[in-house]
């Protein structure tokens, strides 16, 4: 009969329509905005309303997410070399960058003109960068990583879209906080939490090296700074890849996620707020 097909189709639309209200009914009087609820709403089997109320709730991006790159530097409270670059100006990232948007100035000794393995300046033109992640993938020193901060909208590009070293540098603990599993994997590969050169140096002198997975017997282990209470702490621990299986077995429970100080959380939040505030002021100005 003519029209049955249309009715069947409209049935589907009607179901979709009602589905969007089912949740309201099911969660009457219950807290709808909990993390579990968000997970269910944004999961594989979700149906009904699944809109992300963006500025009020944001989908946290997964660990491997790539946006513009940033440079890893030591934390400010690192005992030996606070704020020191991890980058050794080896130039590999500039060589693997497909659109060639990385410029590195290697440091030179002013007297002897011999190169010093440190970047004097480091630029990434984010108007060219294609967020491909090759630089992070091939950097032998784990010194350049893909950032998760995508909120970069701006009113002007001339001044700000070439990121210089100041803007690119972020502490190692930041990297650990946004990508705990990946940072852990890399630390396993390096043989310790610190920069590979430091580890090698320490191994030579016999000093203790803070090993991922081993007890925290080192004088310095970069802290991990979770931002949110709801962040499931086990996530990081269970995300151990099969690749590092040997160490993984011992390490699975030892990610010091819980240790994170409330203080740091507050700082982080304040920083985010300040950033937001600054943007707002920009907008008005």
């Amino acid at each position, binding site marked *: 009969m003519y029209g049955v097909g249309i009715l069947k189709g409209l049935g589907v639309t009607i179901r979709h329509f009602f589905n969007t209200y089912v949740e309201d009914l099911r969660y009457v009087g219950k807290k709808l905005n909990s993390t579990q609820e968000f997970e269910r709403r944004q999961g594989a089997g979700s149906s009904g309303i699944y809109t992300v109320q963006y500025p009020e709730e944001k989908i946290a991006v997964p660990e491997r997410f790539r946006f513009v790159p940033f440079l890893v530097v030591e934390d400010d409270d690192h005992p030996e070399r606070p704020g020191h670059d991890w980058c050794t100006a080896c130039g590999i990232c500039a060589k693997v960058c497909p659109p060639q948007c990385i410029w590195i100035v290697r440091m030179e000794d002013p007297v002897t003109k011999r190169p010093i393995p440190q970047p*004097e300046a480091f630029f990434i033109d984010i108007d060219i*960068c*294609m967020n491909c992640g090759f630089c992070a993938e091939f950097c032998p020193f784990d010194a350049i990583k893909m950032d998760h901060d*995508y909120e970069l*909208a*701006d*009113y002007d590009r001339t001044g700000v879209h070439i990121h210089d070293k100041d803007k690119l540098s972020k502490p190692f603990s930041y990297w650990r906080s946004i990508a705990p599993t990946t940072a852990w994997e890399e630390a396993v590969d390096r043989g310790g939490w610190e920069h590979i050169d430091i580890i090698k140096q320490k191994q030579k002198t016999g000093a203790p090296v803070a090993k991922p997975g081993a007890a925290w017997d080192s004088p310095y282990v970069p802290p991990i700074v979770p931002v949110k209470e709801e962040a499931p702490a086990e996530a990081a621990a269970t995300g151990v890849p099969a690749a590092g299986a040997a160490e993984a077995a011992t390490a699975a429970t030892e990610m010091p996620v819980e240790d994170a100080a409330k203080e740091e959380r507050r700082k982080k939040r304040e920083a985010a707020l300040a950033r937001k505030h600054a943007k707002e002021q920009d907008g008005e100005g």
Partner: protein
Amino acid sequence: MSSLDLRQLHDTEFPIPDEMQGNLAITSLSKVYNWSRRSSVWPMLFGLACCAIEMIATAAARYDTARFGMEVMRASPRQSDLMIVSGTVTKKMVVPIVRLYNQMPEPKYVLAMGACASGGGPFKEGYNVVSGIDQYVPVDVYVPGCPPTPQALINGLIALQKKIDGQSLANMDDVPWYGVGPSDPVPIPILGPDIIDPRQMGLIRQQAMAAAAGQPYGLRELPTVPMKIVSKTASAAGMVEVDAISVVDEAAEADRKARRQDAVARKRAFLAKS
């Protein structure tokens, strides 16, 4: 009131007649006006490249620009307030884009979505790619990323809303479509042997003359741009001057100033007339 003086209305010191005291709420007209404008920004249904896919995803149910009053994507430039330049702008395409931009009614906004629209993107070096749409039409908000995720795009849209909020009716530089009328149309580029921006005709003529006279012309000569040292970095060996440079484009800056003065002059002329 025979002629509405907008500056007066905006003035919070606007005296309220005694008999009306207490019966009247005063808000700034700018506020109401901006609130209604920013809550109904209609983007143009217009996708260029990869970023357009993310733009569509943003408009779809999961991120839902309807929450910002932006779900009405208009296919016609005449009905839209916002042009989201979502993707690589090629020389061939910039001609229609400029036309579309000229056809949009004031107030109009341009959002450059993605690296390509902002500054050329990964394909910048290509012979058919325009290094950023802002070389042809003014851009209000830049959203970096390749592609910006839907959340990043919404972030940009919110930034645009803030920009609208910040515009004041009292300042005709902000709202030139009031009083001084719409801004001049952008001259439409011409597809010759390469794309020609009519605004650069003088320069092109100069270069062509140089070429005819057998002098060096065209490209790959360093223009004398002022450079400044942006940062000094402490190295192990002490302070070292960095020879990395960032360029201040004085010409562009002067151009911007001139345009601004022009707008101010037009505004003055308008005010004097009324």
